[in-house]
């Protein structure tokens, strides 16, 4: 199930919430785990088994790690747990990719069945791994109650697309949390904003970029930039919208998750961008890969190696395809460049220049991210820099600009904190006006969701 669907919002959510609010204390945990299983199984029931296995397996291994005190069997246990988790992830997510890559290395094609990617596998694997690492490092004690661990591991708000919530962050709340109406209100507010970002902004922006990508032949320089700008905004509102919905739903259930996006497009450097973009993933790689590898404390050469490993893996985490690796390595190189060369100049530059520099590099990065084939990436970059473009400006640019300009203006405003600050002021000074805005956003988003089944059955009438 996805949050941005009529079925979730108008069927699953009210029924589930009613049950969750009606039942007392610990019974809420049972309702939450059962509800999450329904949520997860909806549309792809078979992989529920895999998700539950991962939860039970990590629960058990957590207990083991807690119990064993002797360092060397403890380490063996850790390695075993990591290997099993990564094997599952590897098999379901990277199996076809590895065979294809190995095949093309030797110039052969290895036939293999196409496995559907289990929903959220990258998220729940990482979430469970963080739990295991933290126990190993002694930061937390293992959870003895399977039901409580089940709530952490299977909870539907962050199951499908993050954030990658750490056990340590919500340990207290798993034990006892306040579920009340004003928290519900906060959750509703965040959820509606997230829904509007995803459905009104991201999905409409997607139409523009997809149309430009689908153009036969060459496009002009400005059309190419406009296209990748639309995608830059789309991916932000899509991803952060989904995170907002998850955080909002968490609040409704009584949980406080950390924010996952912090206005990344206002960053003044690439490293700042990555402290503001998908924060739960960046900090995961920092804490569980980069720092264990030695971080930047073991000399320049090691540092460069560590950065490149971390960023290649970060890229690969986003999808089983080489363009994601390229995208990750692109950021690894930019971060190194910033650290060793640019930081001196960048620090002295005016804020606007810093932000422009970051935004341009991020936009270019999205080309690698959004296009799977290297040839097409080169072609698109070529269009952006005039090499393979049809010209600098053409009629289609004016068309896309005209049809997208309102969305672009809203997007630019909405990816900066100002709008939200004003809205928060309105919440205090004129609550009804703020509520009206929220309801209006919700109504428009619902109109898009209802209409989405419009095209699926259109029959030709010729």
């Amino acid at each position, binding site marked *: 199930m996805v949050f941005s669907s*009529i079925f979730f919002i108008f069927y699953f959510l009210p029924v589930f919430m009613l049950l969750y609010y009606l039942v007392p204390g610990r019974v809420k945990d049972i309702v939450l785990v059962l509800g999450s299983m329904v949520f997860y199984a909806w549309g792809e029931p078979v992989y529920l088994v895999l998700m539950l296995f991962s939860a039970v397996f990590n629960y058990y291994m957590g207990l083991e790690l807690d119990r064993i005190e002797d360092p060397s069997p403890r380490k063996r246990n850790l390695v075993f747990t990591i290997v099993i988790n990564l094997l599952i992830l590897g098999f379901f997510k990277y199996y076809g990719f590895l065979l294809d890559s190995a095949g093309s290395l030797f110039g052969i094609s290895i036939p293999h069945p196409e496995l559907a990617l289990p929903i959220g596998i990258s998220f729940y694997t990482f979430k469970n791994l963080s739990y295991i690492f933290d126990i190993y490092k002694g930061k937390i004690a293992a959870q003895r109650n399977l039901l409580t661990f089940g709530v952490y591991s299977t909870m539907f708000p962050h199951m499908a697309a993050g954030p990658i919530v750490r056990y340590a962050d919500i340990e207290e709340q798993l034990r006892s949390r306040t579920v009340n109406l*004003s928290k519900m*209100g906060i959750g509703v*507010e965040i959820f509606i904003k997230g829904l509007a970002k995803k459905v009104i902004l991201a999905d409409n922006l997607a139409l523009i970029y997809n149309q430009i990508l689908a153009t036969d032949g060459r496009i002009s320089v400005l059309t190419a930039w406009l296209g990748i700008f639309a995608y830059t905004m789309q991916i932000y509102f899509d991803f952060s919208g989904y995170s907002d919905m998850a955080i909002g739903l968490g609040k409704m259930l009584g949980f406080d998750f950390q924010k996952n996006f912090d206005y990344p497009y206002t960053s003044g450097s690439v490293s700042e961008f990555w402290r503001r973009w998908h924060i739960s993933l960046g900090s995961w790689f920092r804490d569980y890969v980069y720092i264990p590898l030695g971080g930047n404390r073991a000399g320049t050469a090691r540092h460069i190696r560590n950065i490149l490993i971390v960023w290649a893996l970060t890229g690969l985490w986003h999808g089983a395809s080489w363009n994601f690796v390229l995208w990750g390595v692109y950021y690894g190189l930019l971060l190194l460049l910033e650290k060793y060369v640019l930081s001196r100049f960048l620090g002295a530059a005016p804020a606007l220049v810093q932000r422009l520099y970051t935004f341009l590099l991020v936009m270019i990065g999205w080309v690698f991210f959004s296009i799977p084939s290297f040839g097409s990436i080169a072609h698109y970059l070529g269009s952006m820099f005039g090499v393979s473009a049809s010209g600098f400006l053409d*009629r289609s640019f004016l*068309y896309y600009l005209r049809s997208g300009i309102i*969305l672009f203006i809203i997007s630019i405003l909405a990816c900066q904190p100002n709008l939200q600050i004003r809205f928060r002021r309105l919440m205090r000074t004129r609550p009804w006006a703020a509520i009206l805005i929220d309801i209006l956003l919700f109504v*428009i988003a619902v109109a898009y969701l209802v209409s989405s089944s*419009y095209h699926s059955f259109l029959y030709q009438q010729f």
Partner: protein
Amino acid sequence: MVKRSYKPFFRKLSYLFPAILFIVLLLNIVLPDRSFSEKENRVLASRPALSVDQILSGQAETKYETYVNDQFVLRDLWVTLKADFDILLGKTESNGVYLGKSGYLLESFTPPADKRLTATLDAITSFAQSHTGIHQYMLLAPNAVNILKSHLPFSAPQVNQDQYIDRVKDTVSSAGVTFIDVRDTLRNHMDEQLYYKTDHHWTTQAAYYAYLAASDPLELNTAQVSYEKLPASVSFQGTLSAKSGFRSSAKDELDVFLPKSDVAPEFVVNYVEERKKVGSYYAADRLKTRDKYAMFFDGNHAQIKITTPSAEGGNLLILKDSYANCLIPFLAPHYRNIVMIDPRYYYGNLEDLIAAEDIREILYIYNANTFFADTSLELTLVPQ
């Protein structure tokens, strides 16, 4: 932590939002399902039958979500709201339909894959070469996106339909098929209404001009009959408004051209597969439905035979799509027998039909968008 001053806002929202969800849930459960949406011109999904197999494979869930969307309370209103908001956002294209000037909705032209077009043209060519004794003609009607190019939204990207029509013209002409080019005629009458504003068909007026343009190559004596234009409906809402969601309340006038004569012409229209014979080209009861264009020959049928008392022409076979339906009433008085075949629905043997009906002339009538997307004509002409 909630600051005190935010509290009224969050409290209100915490009552309102769940209340909205529950009211809508209740309405959705209580209100009856609809089977057809007039507004969208399509059958709505009905409650899927659930089986364990379907649930385990995930199919039931997908179907159920579509069902829930299709039967959502006040669906038409939501769809209208979405379309209006799209226009507010500046959108001028939706689902392959442009929101053009002066209220015209124009279906965009998708160029055919080269292989596809070549296959159809090869079939026409080889059919022409193996039937040299039969006169063959082709009328390929351009679409609104071609003739009314100037009505497209500002700098909308468009593929030139003419270059593809020209290719068809060249190929079939060299195979001996007479190509009836109606593009110039239509362009000369651009200021009249040649296409419906909300539908993908051409108007009866446009078909009449095409008939005049075709009379020369077909050697028809157009002086024989004169026509008067009468509105059959003023509330025609076509497929393009349904498909795009744009201008969903706009209405078109749908005209018929009736011969000015005191004597009612006697002819028989025979719906062969349906085994139904009527004395009119028009199915008036279709005017009560959304698809009012189907009043011409009751929509699309695999095979229709028209028999007239005409002494002028012989036996004509027409291979056609729906653009032909409002044109054929003009042609009918000139032929003794007309057999209309819609290859998309016809599974009979064309050779047998030609022999049995003693066909002397063949006329292809298609609109460009359908012709370039068609895969059935080639199978009818050259059975595999």
